[in-house]
């Protein structure tokens, strides 16, 4: 009797041999818990939320009436106030994304193409560090700066919200663009120069097309994070309202979960459309 033959009969040995032969079983085991969590529980919760959006609330008792109705979506589309708020939210998200893009691109370019490798390392750390500082702390810092007797003293409102959101999400735009520019070989820029292209033309025909997926990856963050935000608006927005505030107020003060759920579908649909549109650019691989 050889030792291997005895070992072959221990349960552990049999289990590993079985797993080794059956890749499908290994895969199912690996996917089981994550898919139960994210696929069944999380997606289930999302699905349930959207079913709730088709229910209504009894205005008299405040109870949820579990009958399918389009009334929430009708309100959402026909009442001017919600259309204004939805458009305003999208406007804020677009503004934040554009501001961040304009600030982040030159910064990322200087980091990736002008700085020495040693300086690059420190610059990446310098951009990353504020990401670890608390979101609330940063919004709070702007509240203090913008307050009437603060450093800037500009006061609160929609502009303050856009400024603060741009500040909050700026590193999310810098990092993907920096990574994209780093992957762009310097030789391409040199070749463009040798062929007679000046700075702007090199940018338009070489740099921008090749870093576009990275820009999109950054914009997914800035756009989505701005679209769902209601905390910053509360901190520096004064009386302005975004989609997030409508959702929040309908859960809290108004206690109207079905309507809140209906409102919440708006940013989700916008984000899904956006993600589907940018999937083709290959940007999602950059996240």
């Amino acid at each position, binding site marked *: 009797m050889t030792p291997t033959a005895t070992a072959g009969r221990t349960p552990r040995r049999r289990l590993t041999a079985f797993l080794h032969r059956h890749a499908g079983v290994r895969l199912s085991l690996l996917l089981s818990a994550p898919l139960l969590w994210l696929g069944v529980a999380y997606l289930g919760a999302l699905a349930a939320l959207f079913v709730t959006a088709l229910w209504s609330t009894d205005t008299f008792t405040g109870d949820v009436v579990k009958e399918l109705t389009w009334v929430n979506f009708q309100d959402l589309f026909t009442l001017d106030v919600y259309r204004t708020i939805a458009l305003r939210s999208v406007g804020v998200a677009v503004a934040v994304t554009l501001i961040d893009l304009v600030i982040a691109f030159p910064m990322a370019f200087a980091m990736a193409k002008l700085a020495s490798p040693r300086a690059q390392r420190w610059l990446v750390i310098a951009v990353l560090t504020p990401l670890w500082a608390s979101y609330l*702390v940063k919004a709070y810092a702007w509240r203090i*700066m913008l307050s009437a007797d603060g450093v800037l003293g500009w006061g609160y409102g929609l502009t303050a919200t856009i400024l603060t959101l741009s500040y909050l999400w700026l*590193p999310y735009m810098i990092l993907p663009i920096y990574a994209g520019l780093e992957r762009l070989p310097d030789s391409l820029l040199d070749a463009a120069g040798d062929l007679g292209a000046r700075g702007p033309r090199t940018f338009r025909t070489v740099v921008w097309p090749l870093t576009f997926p990275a820009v999109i990856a950054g914009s997914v963050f800035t756009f989505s*994070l701005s679209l769902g935000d209601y905390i910053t608006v509360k901190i520096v927005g004064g009386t302005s309202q975004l989609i997030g505030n409508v959702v929040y107020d309908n859960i809290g003060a108004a206690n109207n979960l079905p309507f809140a759920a209906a409102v919440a579908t708006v940013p989700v649909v916008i984000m899904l459309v956006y993600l589907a549109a940018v999937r083709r650019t290959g940007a999602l691989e950059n*996240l």
Partner: protein
Amino acid sequence: MNLSRTARTALWAMLAAGLGVIYVPLLIVLVNSFNTDRTFAWPPTGFTVRWWEAAWNSTGVRDALWASVQAGLGATAIALVLGTMVAFAIQRYDFFGKNAVSLLILLPIALPGIVTGIALNNAFRAVLEPFGVSLGLFTVIIGHATFCVVTVYNNVLARLRRMGSSLEEASADLGADTFTTFRLITFPMMRSALLAGGLLAFALSFDEIIVTTFTAGAGVRTLPLWIFENLFRPNQAPVVNVVAAALIVASIVPIYLAQRLSGGDAGTR
């Protein structure tokens, strides 16, 4: 590269200005934590450590800090297990719906936090209330783990791609079974990726407020919830400012660790 002198100077200036914009607000919070003036009138009128003492002695702050640490550790532990499992499945196998699975992992951070928040809140109440269980710290942990999986997944996936499988095959050829190979070869090779992903997961959880708002029970108050609650109370302003300043200082720790861990590429999501 053939950039003109002016263009170079302009780019460097923009980088410097951008970094200035990033850091000045944080510095102002730090300076204000020593400001004698209660309303932070600028410029500061005097220096005091009174607010730091008050914050140190505040039980509200301590309890909140402890709740945040517990939530962060719990969520990180779950994210480490789930994220590693998915990363292995995606990297080592081909299967139907692979793209859908990788998109699914991304979904909790791609969707606005308030959507995840109310979806979970709704689900928790529907599932738990019949059993007489109410929201608490564990629901916060579940909520946070949902969006923390992606950070571990990204780090482990990148590591597995770089690692290849030749060492594992060598180990198997030498007679080690699946578990021994994992313990002696695979795990040590991806340890720093796990630490980096775990660190990010913890930081993400520690900072989160929106999902937390909707998944925390009545008695649970994490640090962000505490800050938000006290932000609009004028008499608490100095203490809130100190907590903010302390968090800014504390954020240097993870960045230092992340740099040590993986030589610079740990911080990106």
